[in-house]
């Protein structure tokens, strides 16, 4: 899937914009605050019907105006053009796809898949386990609706069980009641762990390859599932045994302390934990490799090549990594890159736009 044309009206600092886009590589450069990320935000909106910067859609309407429009022409992998128009009128949003009104906006998600790589993503490699679980859960949910349903059910059972643990601590109920919820928790929990482990197993090799290509063979990246329980959990019986072994502690805390909601993913380079021991440059390369995995996974699962947005990331890599990123990215579909500094790509096959105060000017590629 690629975006061939983008139209913006009264969107953030763009009063009126109509640009043709490059099928492979689009580079947006310009000083801070000129509107580079706004372009990425509008593209993100077309794919996921919401912003990645704000939860309030009205914030995207140009200051002092009531309505804003984002419209895009997409070209499918088969070369068919789809027109999507999104109009924000006050709090209401109306969407049409190829002239037909889209009633359930969530139906759009997954049709124009997209992967965003933004500065906040560093949390995946350096942040708490919750950030890595979020990465995993969002990716698996996008690609597989039954994962999402199971996840929601697991969370529901978890809340019920935590309430029971609190009641048990106050000696208000019998332990038999808890055992029921242990069983349902084990069922949903095992299914989540199984999906996650299968996913990690499948991506282990490609991830290693991406990383060695990005880092020029400096180190071997491996990924493991880290259980919150002492023993690994594969079957429902093991799950229940694990719950039994922490029973006293859980009652004392009134909280479920083992399971998918506490598990983690551990990334290592030559055996060293990325989170604790990797340099910033290494962490960036790991992240990039993870993002390429995300891209590739969505592509094979949904069957459509996602659009890739790199917000302020590329320029922070060293020349060697930049070169390899460029070579890896070019194997995929369409990419958008923002950068405050000028980027010199090894290939002239791209469009570079200079962004100044809500306007884009295409730069003519000049021979060096």
């Amino acid at each position, binding site marked *: 899937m690629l975006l061939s044309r983008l139209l913006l009206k009264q969107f953030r600092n763009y009063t009126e914009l109509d640009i043709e886009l490059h099928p492979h590589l689009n580079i947006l450069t310009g000083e801070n605050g000129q509107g580079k990320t706004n372009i990425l935000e509008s593209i993100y909106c077309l794919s996921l019907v919401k912003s990645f910067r704000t939860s309030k859609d009205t914030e995207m309407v140009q200051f002092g105006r009531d309505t804003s429009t984002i419209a895009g022409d997409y070209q499918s992998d088969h070369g068919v053009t789809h027109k999507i128009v999104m109009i924000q009128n006050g709090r209401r949003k109306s969407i049409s796809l190829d002239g037909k009104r889209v009633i359930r906006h969530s139906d759009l998600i997954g049709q124009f898949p997209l992967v965003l790589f933004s500065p906040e993503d560093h949390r995946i490699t350096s942040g708490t386990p919750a950030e890595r679980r979020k990465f995993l859960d969002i990716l698996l949910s996008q690609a597989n*609706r039954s994962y999402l*349903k199971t996840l929601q059910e697991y969370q529901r059972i978890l809340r019920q069980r935590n309430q029971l643990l609190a*009641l048990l601590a106050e000696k208000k109920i019998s332990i038999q009641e808890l055992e029921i919820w242990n069983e*349902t928790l084990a069922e949903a929990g095992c299914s989540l762990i199984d999906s996650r482990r299968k996913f990690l197993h499948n991506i282990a090799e490609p991830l290693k390859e991406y990383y060695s290509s990005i880092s020029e063979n400096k180190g071997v990246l491996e990924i493991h599932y880290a259980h919150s329980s002492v023993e690994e959990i594969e079957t429902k019986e093991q799950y229940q045994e694990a719950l039994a072994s922490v029973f006293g502690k859980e009652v004392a805390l009134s909280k479920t302390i083992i399971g998918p909601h506490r598990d983690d993913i551990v990334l290592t380079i030559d055996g060293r934990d990325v989170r604790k021991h990797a340099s910033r440059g290494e962490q960036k390369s790991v992240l990039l490799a993870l993002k390429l995995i995300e891209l590739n996974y969505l592509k094979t699962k949904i069957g459509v090549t996602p659009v890739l947005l790199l917000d302020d990331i590329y320029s922070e890599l060293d020349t060697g990594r930049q070169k390899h990123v460029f070579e890896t990215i070019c194997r995929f579909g369409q990419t958008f890159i923002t950068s405050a500094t000028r980027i010199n790509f090894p290939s002239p096959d791209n469009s570079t736009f200079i962004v100044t105060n809500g306007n884009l000017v295409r730069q003519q590629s000049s021979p060096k």
Partner: protein
Amino acid sequence: MDFTSDVVNIAVEELSKLPGIGKKTAQRLVFFLLKQEGESVKSLAAALVALTERVRYCPVCFNITEQTPCAICEHPKRDRHIICVVEEPNDVLAIERTGEYHGLYHVLGGALSPLEGIGPDNLRIRELIKRLQDDVDELILATNASAEGEATALYISKLTRDLGIKTTRIARGVPVGGDLEYTDEVTLARALSNRTEL
């Protein structure tokens, strides 16, 4: 803003307590009723009063009824060796509509939900176990396919296992007349894992 008639205000307030009805809808309903002929409003009022005066729970199965025990429990042609356990009276109605079931029912009055403070003692589980002492061969657990419904079914099956009564759970699967491609992934996945041999 309030109306100049207290009677209207009270009616609006009472109606807005109903599920799914807010103040605006309640006002609309009251105006509708005011425009109706007196007789039809009176018969609505009479129906509401009769609800509270005549309808009660069957002491055997806890379905809603006007007679004791209820018509299903008393029916001579019903199979008394089989009991279908459901959460609410609505569920009895749904199963009756199938015309496929000829046994008795047991209405639990909800499902286990610690968050809402509903434990086994708040449901009619003890009453169910007592009923099992009379020559019951099979218990069908037809609680909802939610986390709470599953937990409730599991809880009851644990109790009946010790009593040696055959306990079954209703199957989940593809709706009849439904296209496979429109069936949601979760239902389809469960239907696949619970497939039956032909």
